[in-house]
């Protein structure tokens, strides 16, 4: 492991499906302890890029380095083992299961012969609830079914779980979609907590205002290319919106 290398580095990533080139010449770096926003219209290639990072798709060309080492990720399980975790709003948790069962899914604490250490799992879940999940409601305990939590609370559980099991890079795919204002605030706070723990995040969202609040850097994708990169210090929210609108209009014109 090279200590000076960025956490994640993509070099010359290309992806085609048949004749359609979805991603071209993607070079990007994610450093330790930063939140990078990935923005762009529908069809810009955001989700394809995420699927390449998490091993769902193999790139057609290009190289991926994680902690300085070149990696090829075969599936979601392999990327998770490396320390890359994707938090999807709908797919993260099992709704009918207790909170503690969700937290430890795939990471069970066991005593002997694979029997669960219920005491430890419930204790650690309780600890996580108090310190990291922001679950303060008296109505929620470690035995509550996850289906009873709000959308924001679920994101909190998924993010806290990823951090607890040492994910280095957490990818948040449209985490504020469909959430109320308070719920959104909650999710943005969870996202900041990733950076506070010295870990990194890729934050994908349509809402420039949410993105601007939380991210350190912005990468704008447009029709499969990286169109712009900004540090937070060099761009205002208005400038970011203008850039997006300009790209959108350019795209519309070129289509006509």
């Amino acid at each position, binding site marked *: 492991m090279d200590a000076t290398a960025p956490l994640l580095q993509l070099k010359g990533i290309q992806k085609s499906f048949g004749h359609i080139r979805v991603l071209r010449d993607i070079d990007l770096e994610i450093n330790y302890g930063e939140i990078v926003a990935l923005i762009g219209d529908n069809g810009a290639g955001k989700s394809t890029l995420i699927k390449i990072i998490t091993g769902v798709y193999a790139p057609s060309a290009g190289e991926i380095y994680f902690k300085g080492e070149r990696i090829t990720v075969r599936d979601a399980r392999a990327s998770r083992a490396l320390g890359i975790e994707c938090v999807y709003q709908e797919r993260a948790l*099992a709704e009918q299961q207790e909170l503690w069962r969700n937290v430890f899914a795939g990471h069970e604490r066991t005593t002997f012969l694979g029997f669960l250490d*219920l*005491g430890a799992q419930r204790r650690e879940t309780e600890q996580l609830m108090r310190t990291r999940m922001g679950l303060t409601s008296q109505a929620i*305990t470690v035995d509550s079914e996850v*289906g009873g939590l709000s959308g924001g609370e679920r994101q909190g559980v998924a993010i806290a779980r990823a951090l607890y099991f040492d994910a280095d890079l957490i990818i948040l795919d449209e985490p504020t979609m469909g959430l109320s204002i308070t719920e959104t605030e909650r999710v943005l706070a969870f996202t900041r907590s990733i950076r506070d723990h010295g870990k990194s995040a890729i934050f994908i969202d349509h809402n420039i205002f949410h993105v601007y609040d939380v991210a350190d850097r912005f990468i704008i994708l447009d029709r499969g290319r990286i169109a712009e990169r900004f540090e937070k210090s060099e761009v205002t929210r208005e400038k970011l919106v203008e850039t997006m609108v300009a790209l959108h209009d350019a795209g519309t014109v070129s289509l006509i």
Partner: protein
Amino acid sequence: MTSATAKSPTRAGGPSFFHTYRFQISIITLLVVLYAVFIIRAPGTYLSFNIYRSFMISIPFFGLMAMAATFIVTLGEIDLSFPSIAGFSGWVFAATYVNTSSFILALVLCLVVGAILGLINGLLVTKVGIPSIVATIGTMFLWSGLVNVVTEGRGIPIAQITAAPLHSLFVGELFGQIPAQFLWFLAGSTVMGLIYKRHRFGSHVLFIGDNADSARMMGIHVDRVKTLCFVTMGVSAALSVVFILNQLTFFWASTGSGYLLTTLAAVFIGGTSVFGGRGTMIGTFVGVLIIASLEPGIIAIGLTGFYTQFIYGLLITISVAVYALMLRRRD
């Protein structure tokens, strides 16, 4: 376990005991009400030990299969082929015993065949990608059809098996009163019950049945867990038929058939959800007791056997309706 529960963090306003165990409480109430009716209407029958002894003989014939089926239903899958697996592995047992006079060999081959047939179901579902209801309709006909082909419909008498020393290990009587197969059933049910809610494997089954995508992302080996559940079903069917054959000392070409709907009824009366991700082994256990008690109970209280199916239907429909309403109230 006790110390863990005692120290367990609980807060005011969390799920109450009644809420958490509402399915188990409902079915145990049903069992108590049924037995109250039976005892009041037919005290002579229901206050004597004989009827319980006969229950203990016959319950293990399908009880273990119901426990194993609970895993499969919890996955959101179904297995319709286990009676045929029992039939075919039963033929293997009887034919091997008749030809070699070796109880051990017959037992081992029977269980191995049960495991292999379960494995085939599992692979058809996970690797070939056939929905389990379709795959197991196919294998249901396949294995019972194969029994017909190899036996040409003829049975195999195995009366001499009562002399085998291992015979009493399976269907003998402890203290001359407790049928051995019932102890096997209790032991098997306890192990499966513990695995269901308190073992990593059971946790994975619940998680997969609830949200297979999420389970996959959490690194759970979804296909492997599913396949193992079908293998467990096959082995349970094979073990059940060992009890049946040792008790009846005769193999019929139709052995095993007739257990499909009663077994699944026990699972559903017990409160396990056909949508997956939710169920209880205590529920299935009590469901087995209820299903096994109904027919003799109906006759003992003075109704004719014509009522049996009607009352089965009544109880199944009412209990699944109650469970559905309980789940809807939660939302």
